[in-house]
């Protein structure tokens, strides 16, 4: 991957341009195409199209996401932000009617090709959902769920019997993940209580801890604070800020102030599933190139 990146790469000939509104797409491309950043691109998306049945949800999206930074995706409801996010770890595969064309590369490796190990992909690209969704299990079981199922940690009865139990390792992992998610101090005394007894904000941080426990490289967040009150939200925002030192965070949000506060770069999607502009967050909010984006971020539209 080149140092400075451009996304005008020729598309492969077997994939004809699928925009229904060619002009707008060209226009959009000319607006964000100049965005350049230092450092490595973690994810490189090229001409991504997603259809749900007859619905063209995402139109010819190309974008490169730098590593160890926070990238915010903003835009009005139904503009394809979440669809885009779910394409990055192939969660859209779970929707029967979804059809995905284009290319997504994780550190240069194409994830939409035969032979991709979805388990490995989703271990490396973790996800936090809009509504907190802890399992109806204990806090400890929630955090240790991923590593246990991946066989990284063995605590079963047989492992205990054979003296191979990794309880100590699990304890450390649970503590480390909960500390990373800034939840440790609040739950240290009740790790064996059911996670459903936590408050909404705590549940969401638990979900983040659960995602971190599998040691991902990229963390996808789909409006992680939309169901939370301002205090819980600010905790989550601080957390995202800290996480960006180690992880590549991609976050969808409805809240433009939130995007402005926490992200390094911002991509603006507008109705119809187009990526309209992608630039440094400051640029997007202070001096956007497109009039539509300016209208949107200043609240005139959307």
């Amino acid at each position, binding site marked *: 991957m080149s140092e400075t990146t451009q996304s005008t790469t020729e598309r492969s000939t077997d994939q004809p341009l699928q925009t229904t509104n060619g002009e707008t797409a060209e226009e959009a491309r000319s607006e964000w195409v100049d965005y350049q950043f230092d450092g490595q691109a973690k994810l490189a998306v090229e001409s991504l199209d997603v259809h749900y049945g007859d619905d063209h949800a995402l139109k010819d999206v190309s974008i490169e996401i730098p590593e160890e930074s926070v990238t915010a995706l903003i835009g009005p409801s139904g503009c394809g932000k979440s669809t885009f996010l779910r394409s990055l770890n192939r969660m859209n595969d779970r929707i029967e009617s979804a059809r995905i064309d284009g290319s997504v590369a994780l550190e240069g490796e194409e994830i939409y090709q035969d032979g991709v190990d979805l388990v*490995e992909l989703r271990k490396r690209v*973790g996800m936090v959902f809009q509504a907190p*969704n802890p399992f109806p299990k204990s806090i400890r079981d929630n955090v240790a769920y991923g590593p246990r199922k991946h066989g990284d940690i063995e605590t079963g009865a047989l492992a205990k019997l054979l003296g191979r139990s990794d309880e100590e390792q699990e304890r450390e992992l649970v503590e480390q993940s909960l500390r990373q998610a800034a939840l440790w101090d609040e739950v240290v005394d009740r790790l064996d209580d059911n996670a459903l007894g936590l408050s909404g904000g705590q549940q969401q941080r638990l979900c983040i801890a659960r*995602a971190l426990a599998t040691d991902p490289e990229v963390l996808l967040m789909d409006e992680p604070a939309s169901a939370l009150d301002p205090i819980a939200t600010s905790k989550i925002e601080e957390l995202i800020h800290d996480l960006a030192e180690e992880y590549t965070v991609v976050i969808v949000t409805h809240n433009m102030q939130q995007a402005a506060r926490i992200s390094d770069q911002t991509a603006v999607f507008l109705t119809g599933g187009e990526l309209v502009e992608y630039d440094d967050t400051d640029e997007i909010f202070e001096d956007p190139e497109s009039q539509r984006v300016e209208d949107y971020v200043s609240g005139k539209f959307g």
Partner: protein
Amino acid sequence: MAGATRSALVDEDTTHTDAVAAVAAGLATLLFAVGVVALFDVVSLTDPIAGVPVVTLVGGLLVLLGGAVVSFGVGSRLGFVATDPRPTAGLIAATAFGLIWFVVGGLVASQTFGLGTVGWTAAALVTGGGAFLLTALPREDVGSTLPAGAVTLLAGLVFLGGVIGPSWAWNLGWAQPASFTAGFVVPTLTLFCALLSGWASAKAYGGFGASGRHAGAYLLVYLNALAIVGVLFALVAFTVVEGLPGLLREFTVGLGAGPESTIALFGSELTFTWPFDWPFVMNGVGLLNDVNGVLPAIVGTIWLVVGAVLFAVPLGVGAAVFLTEYAERGRFTQAVEVATNGLWSTPSIVFGLFGYAFLIPRFGGGKSLLSGMLTLGFMLLPLVVITSREAMLAVPDQYRDASVALGVTKWQTIRSVVLPAALPGVVTGVILGVGRIAGETAPILLTMAGGVFVPGSQTADVVGGFEFTASPPFVANPELLQATSALPYQLYALITAGVGASGNVGNPDQFKWATALVLLVVVLSFYAVGIVTRYYFRSKLHE
């Protein structure tokens, strides 16, 4: 204040009238309870309470209730009582009261005054139409109290005046000997009047209008729920009362009172004596027994249920996992759904016939415990599939998403997230199914049951029956291939063949009720086990 368009936010002077209406509603509830009790013969109509026969007492209470309701309505209309009625009681109430009074008028005209068809029809039309108009036209406080109170008054006077006494009967004069007796009519009429007047007085208590309608509906729903609980309780209590004497016959407690049992474990034999003797559940039927019992049938029933559950639950849950998690929604899953629903509605005798024609020839040609287990297992299977499927569909998709997004495979997701969350629902389904199959008679009759009266020596010893051999098939269990009995079949056999059985079982009636009681207890025990299991799985999800 009556008829005011706006009522005060805080009523201050309605305490007394509220009390009258509350007493009337309480009286209605009491009469309802008396009616239920009398209907089930718990009290007899001629029994005196404080020197007054029940029927007279009921009559007096009805008159009191009817009077209270009527006077409340009239009082409200005349402005003595502060209420907030609507302009009319409504068309539904009017139609209901019209019908009620049509019947009342017709019955009184034809039965009491002996009028002919034309006469009673005219009388019925007049009273019915009158009641309709009386309900529909005046204000709500009169419309909904007067017709109800009048019915109650009339019924009370009829009971008081001895028109319908304890020995009264109305012969319908049909080809079949059909008649209404006082034992049925008095409690039923009491129930009916209590409901009507209870509704009216609850409305009055709420001051008519919207809150009055709410109070009336509340009372009806509440009494209805009480009646259902009451009927269930009466059924269980009746069985217990009838069954206990036979069940506890010659029941003794004391050290060394019971029979000796031997448990053989790894070559060492442990012999002990039961600290109580309970012949009915410890004996079979035998010539030399002092008290005959149903031990083989109890053991047979328990093994039947255990076998059927062991067969149906893994298969059913597995099918449900496939249908909900793997199969794509479409024609196939719809077809399976229709088929399982249809199978669950299939009459049990059809399953029995299938077992008789298909299973029995494959298991040695004779009726056997194994055939019975499998037949009941087939019966249980569709319900397990249906309820497990529902339970799994009810597991939120976000659990699955969360698990998959962590890179966990589908099967591990099902095993660690979906199944635990669905288990309480699955257990509920199994409880329902067990309740049904444990009481089935027809399939057992065809596939499993041996003689009517099974000697104690034929008690199925499934655990002890396993035999291990050095050559294939390595394990055998003749006990499973033996005909045995089960409680519902035993009951059926006693009832149909009971006449000739008196010599065998002493008092056949006692024996029957005791068997029924034991069956009830066994089924309820399975139910209790199921509830505890469900509670356990649920608490694991929520603690």
